[in-house]
């Protein structure tokens, strides 16, 4: 029996199973499952990225040169779905899987078999979703927000809905596992307020996931029954309301945005203190800020809907609530800067990406504050200004943090140092081209270019061409990332120390590099001075 086989391995404390299928497809090991998540996420990053290349190629100059408008809409829709649900979220789950048990001194995740299931659902979900591109009628083309009635005009509604259901089930199981692990599996002495900020950020994120993924599932199920079973939840002709979908969707969608950024806050809060060689400034304030942002995320959803004709009172409430988010977010940025102040800094690749995160995410935050002002949003809404905003927070925010985390822990995972030279090449290319790519989009939006259009007036031509050039080169720069990873895994000769970085603190650095297949089979004895936050006073 399969279970017996893995069970034996657990018992005799040997390494991973030698059979490839048994090791990867039937794994219950948090490190292997974490690796699977990360590899899957990287694959999706490139698939989603290739869709973005099609978009930028078509927008390179005015006139339609490459694709029909309907296919263009399929590309924008699939780019978003693949990047959000396929690249960013699984990457964070992968990092959480790998690192949370190591950071809290647990032998594995609390629910290892569910862990396996929650990963292996994903390839099926995305096979279902991506297969629509090859089916008659094409893929979903109504935007990732799936607003009815438009989304119901597509032929792939059922595929889209079931794919979203599968992703949701996977996310909920992953979230339950993370909460159970953090609350039950901490080594004795690892108090909640001694946990690394990354673990805190994931604990809060997991609650967000459990709260909102079922809401999304409900919303898409209503789409399904509207399409195929004659219900009229969102059909005005049948007494329904198309705006109702938007309320339900964004009640999911806004927390979802923070699901994609809170773990990034956590990662950056690990990396900056390590390379500043100084404890994080205001640990409790950082944790409290994450919790406040998570709470606020539930009461701001309609700021995505300022132009649907909300009543005045609604516009005012959602505007004020949205502006409030600037306060805890500002606290986090100030605390990162204060952590650097008075430190003894070195600038290895993870630190470079973390610093770029702080600066560029803050620029995304600034445009977010501007978007929160409803009268100005009447202009910004659904323009390229919004596109620039959310790419600053998601690409230079979430994805830069994921890349930073990957460089930070790659030596721990592989036992080898990556090439610092090529890591820095990757960094400088990414940070330059990503700004060439997204910064001009602010100007396009302010000049009046709507989002999600395949062609535009010649007045928008110059900035679009600059943006496209930035896009191609940013995309190409990510190939360096793959090269660095492949080199570190299979070819690097330089052994990594157990404590890879001089200033690194925390339990993950007390285990050997590469981390053995099983760690902390006996709970570690916690010495507070080894922890990043062992002595918390503030």
């Amino acid at each position, binding site marked *: 029996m399969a279970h017996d086989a893995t069970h034996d391995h657990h018992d005799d404390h040997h390494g991973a199973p030698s059979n490839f299928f048994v090791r990867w497809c039937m794994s219950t090991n948090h490190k292997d499952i974490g690796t699977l998540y990360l590899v899957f996420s990287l694959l999706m990053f490139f698939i989603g990225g290739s869709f973005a290349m099609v978009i930028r190629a078509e927008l390179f100059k*005015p*006139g*339609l040169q490459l*694709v029909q*408008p309907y296919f263009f*809409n399929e590309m924008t829709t699939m780019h978003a779905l693949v990047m959000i649900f396929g690249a960013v979220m699984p990457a964070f789950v992968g990092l959480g899987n790998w690192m949370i048990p190591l950071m809290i001194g647990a032998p594995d995740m609390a629910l290892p078999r569910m862990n396996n299931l929650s990963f292996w659902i994903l390839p099926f979900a995305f096979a279902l979703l991506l297969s629509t591109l090859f089916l008659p009628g094409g893929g979903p083309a109504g935007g990732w927000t799936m*607003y009815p*009635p438009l989304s119901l*005009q597509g032929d792939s509604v059922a595929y889209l809905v079931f794919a979203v259901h599968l992703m949701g089930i996977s996310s909920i199981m992953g979230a339950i596992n993370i909460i159970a692990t953090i609350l039950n599996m901490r080594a004795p002495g690892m108090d909640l307020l001694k946990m690394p900020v990354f673990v805190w950020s994931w604990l809060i994120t997991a609650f967000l996931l459990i709260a909102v993924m079922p809401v999304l599932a409900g919303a898409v199920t209503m789409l399904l029954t509207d399409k195929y079973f004659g219900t009229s939840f969102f059909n*005005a002709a049948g007494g*329904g309301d*198309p*705006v109702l979908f938007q309320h339900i969707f964004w009640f999911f969608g806004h927390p979802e945005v923070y699901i994609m950024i809170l773990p990034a806050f956590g990662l950056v809060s690990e990396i900056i203190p390590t390379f*500043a060689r*100084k*404890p994080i*400034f*205001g640990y409790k304030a950082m944790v409290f800020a994450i919790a406040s942002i998570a709470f606020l995320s539930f009461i701001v959803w309609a700021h995505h809907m300022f*132009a649907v*004709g909300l009543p005045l009172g609604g516009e*005012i409430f959602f*505007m*004020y609530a949205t*502006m409030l988010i*600037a*306060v805890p977010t*500002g*606290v986090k940025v*100030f605390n990162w*800067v204060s952590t650097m*102040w*008075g*430190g*003894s800094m*070195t*600038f290895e690749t993870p630190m470079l990406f973390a*610093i770029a995160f702080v*600066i560029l995410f*803050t*620029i995304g935050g600034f*445009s977010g*504050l*501007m978007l929160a*002002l*409803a*009268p*100005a949003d*009447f*202009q910004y*809404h*659904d*323009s390229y200004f919004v596109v620039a905003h959310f790419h600053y927070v998601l690409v230079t925010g979430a994805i830069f943090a994921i890349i930073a985390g990957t460089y930070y822990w790659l030596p721990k995972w592989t036992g080898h140092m990556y090439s610092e030279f090529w890591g820095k090449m990757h960094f400088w290319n990414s940070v330059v081209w990503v700004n060439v790519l997204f910064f001009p989009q602010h100007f396009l939006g302010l000049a009046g270019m*709507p989002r*999600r*259009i*395949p*062609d*535009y*007036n010649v007045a928008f031509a110059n900035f679009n061409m600059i943006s496209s050039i930035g896009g191609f080169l940013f995309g190409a720069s990510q190939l360096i990332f793959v090269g660095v990873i492949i080199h570190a895994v299979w070819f690097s000769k330089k052994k990594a120390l157990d404590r890879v970085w001089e200033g690194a603190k925390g339990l993950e650095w007390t285990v050997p590099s590469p981390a053995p297949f099983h760690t902390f089979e006996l709970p570690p004895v916690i010495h507070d001075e080894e922890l990043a936050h062992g002595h918390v*006073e503030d």
Partner: protein
Amino acid sequence: MTRGASEWSPEAYFLNNVALGVCVVIGILVFGAMFIAMFRFRKSRGAVAEKWSHNTMLEIVWTTIPVIILIVLAYLATGGLRTFADTTGSEMTVKVTGYQWKWRYDYVDYKGKAIEKVGFMSKLDRESDETRQLNSGLDPNAVQVDGYNTYLINVDKPLVVPVGVKIRFVITAGDVIHSWWVPALGWKMDAIPGIVNAAWTNITEPGVYRGQCAELCGQDHGFMPIVVKAVPKEEFEKWLADQQAQANPPAPAAPAAASTTAAPATAQATDAPVSQGHQG
């Protein structure tokens, strides 16, 4: 962002400038501090890490100051919202209906008098439509009106409105959600089937103002522009009278304007060949 050409549009413009200014100042302070830290506290310059990790006074200060800034911004923004929401006192009503992929304009009333049967479809002009076909071989730069490039932002029949009159727009849609956006008016408003939204404008300068659909509405979402032609009141009144005369001919014509999908009767005079035919 454009300052716009209506009574309200400077609100959005002004708020944008204030918010941008605030962000730039905060950005300079925060990023400035970061860059100073990065140069002063480098290990390669012999910096030794300090041990402190909190400062209650500082934390209170940098929580309070943003709150004060936000209160000021919220005050300014609330004023803009209140004036925007107030459609009372309008002297004219235009019904805007979004369709895949064209707009319909119906003139409902003007100066207290109901208008009968003045309404028409407005869609992408033929020259843009031919140029925008995949690999059409036509140059988008060549699509011009009076030396001004109008590629994808010109229509067969523009919405004609008077300047200096508060106009109420009632906005809805016939199939999927669209959004009616003319940047010079300072706002966009979603056109949603089953829902009638209201917005207003009072254009201050005569001119031609162009915009586009701003809510993804299907394959030709990028090809349903909006053109508003603002003319002096007398000129508008004359235009309206002409339209009414055309719409109510003595001849026993079919009841054209009743159906939204039928060819609009009023479009016959000038642009009839263009308004038929092309669908993207």
